[in-house]
């Protein structure tokens, strides 16, 4: 699925990549930018975290002329507040007069921090549904964006790629939720890696051993110490045995049913009581 999305075989108007400090989405965006440049006439890249040269130098030389980088850090008003808004990209796209265009944003975190999230979402929606734009890809940092804003963005996106650190070491893992234009929703989990030149390689379905959650689930299960031993008894209880055990009324506990007998020892267990199940009179010769 990831490969189809990168190469454009799978159509998606708005791809949202969510990342965190442990697994940065910038390298995936770089790969997306390069493959998107192959299939569109123009690509607007809005950079906030790295300067345009960072992207420009990495892209293959014959594709560079199609790439138009806009430095998101250049526009400040006289007080020093960031004034850049996505509407400017929209205007520039509209000037393209029907050229198939893609738009990429290297991080939405700063615009969301500086302005209310719904404003950014509305502008993104306008951008993604604009006639000339064939695809929008955006990175957002999960660890800096509150759940509400993330939810808004995910609601708008047709594809959400959640990047996760893979437990197997060098690789990366991702959860993809993709909604086709027909309305059918796909959910897949894939792993991938980058080579020395940061080009994506080895995209494969995520194996159970690579997945963080499953590993956690496995380790949280109680180990069975008798599994490998040839014992004549068993230590584990089945559900029905557990149920039967819970029904047993222990002697000397007040159960409220036998109030009639005259002499009886009643013991009410204390909260902090260290209940000893051994017979306390065991050592006496009675």
């Amino acid at each position: 699925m990831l490969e189809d999305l990168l190469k454009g075989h799978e159509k998606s108007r708005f791809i949202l990549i969510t990342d965190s400090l442990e697994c940065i989405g910038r390298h995936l965006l770089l790969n997306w930018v390069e493959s998107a440049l192959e299939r569109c006439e123009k690509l607007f890249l809005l950079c906030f975290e790295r300067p345009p040269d960072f992207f420009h130098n990495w892209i293959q030389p014959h594709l560079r002329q199609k790439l138009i980088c806009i430095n998101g850090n250049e526009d400040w008003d006289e007080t020093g507040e960031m004034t850049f808004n996505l509407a400017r990209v929209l205007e520039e796209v509209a000037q393209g007069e029907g050229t198939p265009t893609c738009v990429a944003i290297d991080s939405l975190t700063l615009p969301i921090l500086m302005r209310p999230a719904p404003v950014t979402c509305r502008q993104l929606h306008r951008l993604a549904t604009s006639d000339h734009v064939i695809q929008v890809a955006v990175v957002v940092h999960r660890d800096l964006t509150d759940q509400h804003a993330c939810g808004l963005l995910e609601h708008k996106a047709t594809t959400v790629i959640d990047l996760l650190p893979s437990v197997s070491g060098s690789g990366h893992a991702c959860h993809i939720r993709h909604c086709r234009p027909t309305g059918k929703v796909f959910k897949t989990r894939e792993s991938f890696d980058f080579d020395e030149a940061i080009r994506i390689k080895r995209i494969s379905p995520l194996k159970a051993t690579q997945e963080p959650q499953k590993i956690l689930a496995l380790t949280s299960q109680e180990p069975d110490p008798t599994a490998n031993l040839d014992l004549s008894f068993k230590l584990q209880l089945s559900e029905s045995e557990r149920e039967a055990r819970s029904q047993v009324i222990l002697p000397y506990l007040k159960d409220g049913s036998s109030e009639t007998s005259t002499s009886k020892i009643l013991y009410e267990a204390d909260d902090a009581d260290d209940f000893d199940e051994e017979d306390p009179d065991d050592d006496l010769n009675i």
Partner: protein
Amino acid sequence: MLAQICQFLGVDSSDFPLNEHVFVADKSKDGGFLIHYFLNLCVKQNRPLCFVGLSQSFNHYCTVAQKLGTNLLSARNNKNLIFIEGLRLISDIVVEGKEKTNPILQLFNGITSPLCNLVYDSLKEIGVSSFQEHFGAPVLIIDDLSVLLSVGVPLKYVVSFVKRLQYLVTSYSPQGSLIVSLCIGEGDGDEEDTWVHLSHLGTLSIEVSNLKSGYCKEVHGQIQVEWKDSYLKPRKVHYKHTQYRLSDKNIELFASGMSSAVL
């Protein structure tokens, strides 16, 4: 001290940090030595340096530098170093008559320009300008950013301020470096969030923290270094980790569990 840290980072002491944006998180209250390391390293390289001291006065850095064999006073007189007394700016907030033009007070309202202009003018004063090639890439050091958060500047303005400074130092040719330190108290949400913001922006994150097992006389803490995408080209993330022991003028760095006291 300088040589040991350079060796651990695997960098050349004659040109580091070149075009790197270094963010130092101090989770142990002992990590101040890294700022002294960067300050002294850059002064030794004769690079144009602007230092914004928000946590200590110039005399403090001067005394420490003397111990490490660097003369900050002569660097300042030679116009290689300019020191912005951030502490004085903060205390001026409460002085009558000065409060209106105080750049830090304006930062409270999200107006980052006066403080950025102060840095810009300082760099200009030591001969760094966008129009002429200087003999060395400029360096801007801020120690420490958590002071701004503590006096009440909202997180988003602090991040915006750093973002502008990053843009400012990279607008020169050759592009400069930004070094920012940040103290992170346990459970302080704002400081931790600022750190995550900075880590996303930076090219090199250094975290100094206490040992997880608690205080130890022989091992004072640990350093975790994360190299990320450089400012102009992507690179694979790689980490380095070490434990350290500080003495009066020196630092001992050793791999985890390899302290001479243990061996």
